[in-house]
């Protein structure tokens, strides 16, 4: 485990405060979408599903945090937690609700460690905007409703 290195420039977005989590204004839709946008959203969602559903078992929350969670969809968790595992993870990382499954956050942690993306798990994820449920996250990024995914991690110097 590496010690977190928050003060470094370019990594500031990783260290989010509780204030950032409760700022629901950012993702709120000011006006209902136009007909054109709805059609575009439908098309984008279809395209997105073709990629995300088979590869990531996407649950279409519309507020994608896939890049923060080691490219495993956290919304497969029965409690739909966005900030880490609940206290019920069993021996060997089994899910509390469905013991035959692995806890999704257990898988995420392992993957993130392998990809050296643990600092991204340090983010306090925003409260989910349920208006964005079943909309295209890609379009939401383009419309600047949600933050763009983080693909490249800045390397930490030793």
């Amino acid at each position, binding site marked *: *485990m590496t*010690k977190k290195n928050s003060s470094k420039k370019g990594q500031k977005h990783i*260290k*989010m*405060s*509780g*204030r950032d*989590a*409760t*700022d*629901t*204004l950012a993702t709120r839709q000011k006006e209902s979408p136009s007909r054109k946008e709805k059609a575009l959203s439908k098309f984008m969602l279809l395209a997105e599903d073709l990629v995300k559903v088979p590869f990531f078992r996407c649950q279409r929350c519309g507020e994608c945090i896939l890049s923060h969670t080691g490219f495993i969809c956290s919304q497969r968790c*029965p*409690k*739909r*937690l*966005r*900030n*880490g*595992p*609940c*206290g*019920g*993870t*069993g*021996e*060997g*990382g089994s899910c*509390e*609700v469905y013991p035959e499954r692995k*806890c999704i*956050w*257990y898988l995420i*942690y*392992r993957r993130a460690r392998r990809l050296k993306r*643990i600092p991204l*798990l*340090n983010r*306090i*994820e925003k*409260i*989910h905007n*349920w208006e964005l449920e079943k909309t295209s996250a890609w379009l939401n990024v383009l419309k600047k409703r949600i933050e763009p995914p983080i693909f490249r991690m800045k390397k930490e110097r030793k």
Partner: protein
Amino acid sequence: MRLREKIEDGRFLFTAELGPPKSSNGNVIRRKSAHFRNIVDGVNITDNQTAIVRLSSIAAAKILLEEGLEPVVQMTCRDRNRLAIQSDLLGMAALEIENVLCLTGDYQRFGNHAEAKGVFDLDSVQLIAAAKSLSEGYFLSGDKMKTPPALCIGGAANPFADPLEFRVLRLEKKIRAGASFIQTQPVYDLERFRYWMRLIREYGLHEKIAILAGVMPVKSSRALYHMEAEVPGITIPQKLIQRMENAADSKEEGVKLAVETIHQLKEIEGVRGIHLMPLMWESITPRIAKEAGLNHNANTKLDQRGEQI
């Protein structure tokens, strides 16, 4: 002195847990509260624990307040969306209850209403952030309010569940979100707890937050078996189960075990208090407190307490 001031003061804390009844009989709470009076710094009221319907935790907290105890209301995300959470937090503060323990909540499938819809609108980290935001005078919508509630916010941590390292990161998130105390799952596996505390100290988290280690006294080895099998995220060393089984008087052994655990926990650097969970065995609290040397609140009231028991 209220719990918030005691935390800031840095003194060793002792809290206990009380489960409200599965009926509307408030006298049960009054009766149980007698075991805690003048001993503990705060009493947690569970919020429909294990997803079984019980008397409302805020109502129970109000009764405790009238009885002269300091309640800590547990609040889960299972039953409330963001509207209900905020309104309950405001309601709590209006009743002068200021301590809230923010939890995710047990999944509804394990309770007596398995067919219920689980809400999980927020998760526990976001719940802490929401409570913090309210206490700073802002609703989640961004609107400002005139009289913000005074809240002392706590969270939970499980030092025994995998992935252990992630638990530390998550605790750090809870601190950043605004929690000022943490209560852990009951400690039976001391080795594992020590390891977890070492990680906590490595990150310097024990200086930022009051960590209260959970202790649950048990009456028999059966209770341990049950916990090992039924309660997710708890590990119990085989040695302890064996010890309870071989004991001539298992109740006596249970008390001894709890007292021993508390003594060992007190020695670990960074542990700022004990959270006792005498499930269905509230009457044992005074004895454990005495034997473990936790009744630091007021020695003069010992006789008076003797009358109450």
